[in-house]
């Protein structure tokens, strides 16, 4: 997944970013709202927002984003643990509320959970034909046999699964794959789609000519 993280604490922000990258996510981390606002319209899969930021309230920003019609999953992170604070945070439009200090494993699990709810898949396991995808375990099998995917292939598959049934534009998918570290510079998007089809079957990804790709429901 591609995640937007807004956290002003350097140590915490760096720790979250690095942990989630190890988990296979692409994380854009900002310490100020003003910087995050410039990129929020890009195709992120989820937003992780701290409540108390140096240049504003993360919760107020969430409220404004929802007011503008943004539907992305949003998790609010904060040191505030009062019931009234939790209610305020969730009522602002956040999908989940994490009280610091939390364990990063829990953060990763909650991100997966809100993402599943957003995509309409209630469980971490999705079956498309003979292909079974377990987003928690990051495991894919075809006909019961495990299939190895590269990080980019997994990110591409995950982006399509969470928007299953809907067309994802080529530009969004390109942006998702841009800046991926740890692998050689990618070939075109089409190459990764070709590889997915080769490993999981042609029917797994449908081409919508001139627009993008989608995974059928």
């Amino acid at each position, binding site marked *: 997944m591609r995640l937007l993280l807004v956290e002003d604490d350097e*140590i915490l922000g760096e*720790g979250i970013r690095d*942990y989630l990258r*190890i988990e296979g996510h692409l994380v854009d981390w900002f310490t100020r709202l003003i910087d995050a606002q410039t990129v929020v319209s890009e195709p992120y899969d989820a937003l992780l927002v701290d409540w108390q930021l140096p240049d504003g309230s993360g919760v107020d920003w969430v409220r404004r984003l929802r007011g503008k019609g943004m539907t992305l999953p949003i998790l609010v992170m904060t*040191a505030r643990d*009062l019931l009234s604070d939790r209610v305020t945070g969730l009522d602002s439009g956040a999908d989940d509320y994490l009280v610091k*200090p939390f364990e*990063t*494993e829990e953060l990763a699990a909650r991100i997966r959970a809100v993402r599943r709810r957003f995509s309409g898949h209630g469980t971490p396991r999705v079956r498309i034909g003979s292909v079974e995808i377990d987003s928690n375990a990051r495991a894919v099998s075809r006909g019961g046999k495990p299939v190895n995917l590269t990080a980019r292939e997994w990110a591409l598959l995950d982006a399509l699964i969470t928007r299953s049934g809907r067309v994802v534009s080529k530009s969004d998918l390109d942006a998702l794959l841009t800046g991926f570290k740890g692998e050689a510079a990618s070939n075109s998007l089409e190459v990764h789609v070709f590889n997915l089809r080769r490993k999981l079957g042609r029917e797994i990804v449908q081409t919508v000519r001139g627009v993008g790709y989608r995974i059928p429901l």
Partner: protein
Amino acid sequence: MRRELVRALSLVSVAWLAAVFIAVAIGVRHEVDELMDGALQEAAEILYGLVALGNSSGPSTAAGSMLAPPHNEGLVWQVVDERQQVVLRSQQAPSSPLLPAFAAGLSDSPLDWRVYAMRLPAAGQALYVGQPVRDRVQSRYKATIVVGASALAVGILCVAWLRRRIVEAMKPLQELSLQVKHYDPMRAETDLPAPSREEFQDIREAIRELGHRLAGRVQGERAFSAHAAHALRTPLAGMEAQLAVAMKEASDSARPRLERTREAVHRLKRVVTSLLALFRSAEELNLEDIDVEELMLLLPVESLAVHVDPGCRVRGDANLLAAALANLLDNSSRHGARECWVSCRTEGDRQTLTLTDDGPGVTEAQRAALQLGLDHATDLDAGGLGLKLAALIARAHRGKLVIEPAPAGRTGLSVSIVLWADGPEEAGAGSSPA
């Protein structure tokens, strides 16, 4: 206060009425006697003249009484000679002398007569005019009753009116008391309205002023709590996140050390959470009925097998009790325990939550020193922070922490969080942990 005032008024009124009645009775008796004595004397003097004209030629009966048509005599008279023989009398006068011996003026006869005696001009003769004491007593009684009853009636009416006036006068004070009882300086809708009596205005202003100062202080402390929470929690979260990354990236040889560091961070997290919860509870406890078994499921109990008695329930602040139990479990684990047993006991309002472990325990001297330090909160070295926090949490619940040797068959310690030892707390009422 109203009851006291009314009671005092009633007692004073009853005493006043009794005093008035006695005064009236004494006064009436004196006046009646004076009046009737005057009438008696006057009658005697009138009769003296008549009798002095010559009693031997007057009409009389064979019994020596003056002839007259039948009539009631309020006054009777006798003429007696020197031998105290009745020589002439009125119709209803007794035939024996009214007095055993002549005594001039007013005197009381042994035959229950009030008598006025005068010497007659004729030698040795005397005139006795008498009035039945019975008539006198009846007159006193009637006069006393009439006057006394009137005074009593007026007095009772006055008391009733006074009582009603006092109740009405106290009503604004009662209303003010009720308003103060519901006054919460943190909630604008409970502000005290203007009193109906001007003399209570100063009291109202003083209470509001006190409330505003209190609200200001609470808000300041809440703001501090929020800032403190952020300042403490965020670095802890940062430590946790960095350690998680380090453990993912670390070699196998480094991972155990990182794990221990992470455990230390978790312990620090528990202490910070407990402190923040305690600080917040200075405002008020969030009381609820707690299933201890469910609560224990939320607590970190690594390397410790915890057994909870079924049906174990207490009433308290779940966050605080969770913090207390987490600290006690951590203590047990660090002191070598591998198993813990949690039980509950209720005696009236008092509830006891006991955690017993199978650790090595402590000597009796150490146990006593620990208990003394916790009871008096004076010995900063006695017991670790976890025990002190648990003791503060128990105190916040109007209770205490009790440390005892584990029961027979076990080797460790029993630590009991006694709740409501000083009586139950009303829901939402504040209790300072300090």
